[in-house]
């Protein structure tokens, strides 16, 4: 792989800058190697080490190895503190690869595979500032908030710096069941419980509007997910993710993700995606959702 600062790319860039300086009389400083301040996670994170800290449009630092190897923090009731903040730990560019499956291993029904293959990345709903849905995680920080009332654990909230788009993913921890025939939503209806040190969340009631990844892997409103979160040390949050969707998958499948903790001094920041979203203008893309709205663009075949 060639890079902008690799043997060929670096020569080109330096030559170009040399010409610029000669013709324009400019005093451009050819950057010396930038010292990498801290390790981080970036979007399209195929950034070579000599460009880390310099490139990557979205970038989030992670805890040092020494901190990450520390013990699992716990709350006053002995439960693991899952608060983070975290980065990663879900699907993003390719749910099969991100979740540890081999190419083609996700058991998509033919119509769903065809749709994924036809979808174009420029039409990804997320690019238009919609919520990410589950189990997607972009390269921004997110955290789990374990809320209590006088009666004990009441709710758990998932807060994503970028990707909630005004929604609030809440998990009911009070023992209630799912409602009958819930209104489909971006994050669905979630109920949770503890299984020892693992947090288990069962979710139904998803809409079919979000993509699992930028490839366009689809799902239907029959989507049912079971998440099992565990924190083996300070720096790691593992997710065993069971994906069931009889409308789009021939059988349930399990994927595995792992999130990394940010350094302890980091917090979530405000991110209002729609305030100045100019996506599409530079590249000449049109928002196809303006008239038809978000959602599956094909009829789901009747099940046999």
């Amino acid at each position, binding site marked *: 792989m060639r890079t902008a600062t690799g043997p060929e790319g670096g020569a080109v860039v330096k030559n*170009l800058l040399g010409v610029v*300086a000669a013709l324009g009389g400019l005093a451009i400083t050819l950057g010396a190697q930038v010292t990498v301040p801290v390790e981080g996670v970036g979007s399209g994170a195929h950034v070579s080490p000599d460009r880390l800290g310099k490139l990557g449009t979205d970038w*989030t630092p992670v805890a040092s190895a020494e901190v990450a190897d520390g013990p699992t923090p716990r709350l006053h009731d002995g439960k693991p503190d899952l608060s983070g903040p975290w980065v990663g730990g879900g699907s993003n560019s390719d749910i099969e690869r991100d979740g540890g499956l081999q190419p083609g291993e996700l058991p998509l029904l033919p119509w769903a595979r065809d749709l994924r293959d036809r979808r174009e990345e420029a039409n990804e709903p997320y690019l238009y500032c919609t919520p990410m849905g589950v189990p997607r995680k972009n390269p921004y920080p997110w955290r789990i908030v374990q809320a209590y009332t006088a009666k004990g654990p009441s709710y758990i909230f998932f807060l994503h710096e970028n990707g909630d788009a005004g929604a609030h993913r809440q998990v009911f921890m009070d023992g209630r069941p799912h409602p009958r025939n819930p209104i489909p939503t971006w994050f669905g209806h979630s109920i949770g419980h503890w299984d020892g040190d693992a947090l288990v969340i069962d979710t139904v009631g998803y809409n079919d509007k979000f993509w699992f990844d930028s490839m366009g892997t689809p799902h239907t409103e029959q989507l049912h997910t079971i998440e099992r979160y565990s924190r083996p040390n300070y720096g790691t949050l593992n997710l065993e993710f069971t994906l069931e969707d009889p409308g789009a998958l021939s059988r349930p499948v399990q994927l595995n993700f792992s999130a990394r903790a940010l350094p302890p001094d980091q917090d979530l920041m405000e991110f209002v995606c729609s305030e100045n979203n100019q996506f599409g203008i530079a590249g000449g893309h049109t928002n196809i959702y303006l008239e038809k709205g978000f959602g599956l663009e094909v009829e789901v075949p009747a099940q046999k």
Partner: protein
Amino acid sequence: MRKQLCAVVVAFGLCCLTAPLVAHHGFELEYDKRKPVAAKGVISKVEWTNPHMRIYVDVTDEKGEVTSWNLELGSPNSVYRRGWTREDLKAGDTVSFTAYGGREVLTRAVADEITLADGRPFTGATGVPQ
């Protein structure tokens, strides 16, 4: 219009040369690795906004014609977490930049390297993944 813009770029050294980059999908959706550009100009506006920071740089060619470049950076949060502040990029500052032009609109570019008025390389968050 395109010809004029290329003239601006040529005046500062290059136009439409091939840069051997391997870009990720997000980059190629909007920007063209075959359109590397470089110039020096004056920042007219800095937007610490989401989902991307933007700086607008007015570049004057040898004929006195001014072109305003809309340069996309990373998100404000990514830039801030790397230690950069509003004091580092201000309207009125003179900066040099290299960037890659938009696939459809050349002057809507993604910044690669920015050199600040005081000579420091702005390494906060620029946007060309390899």
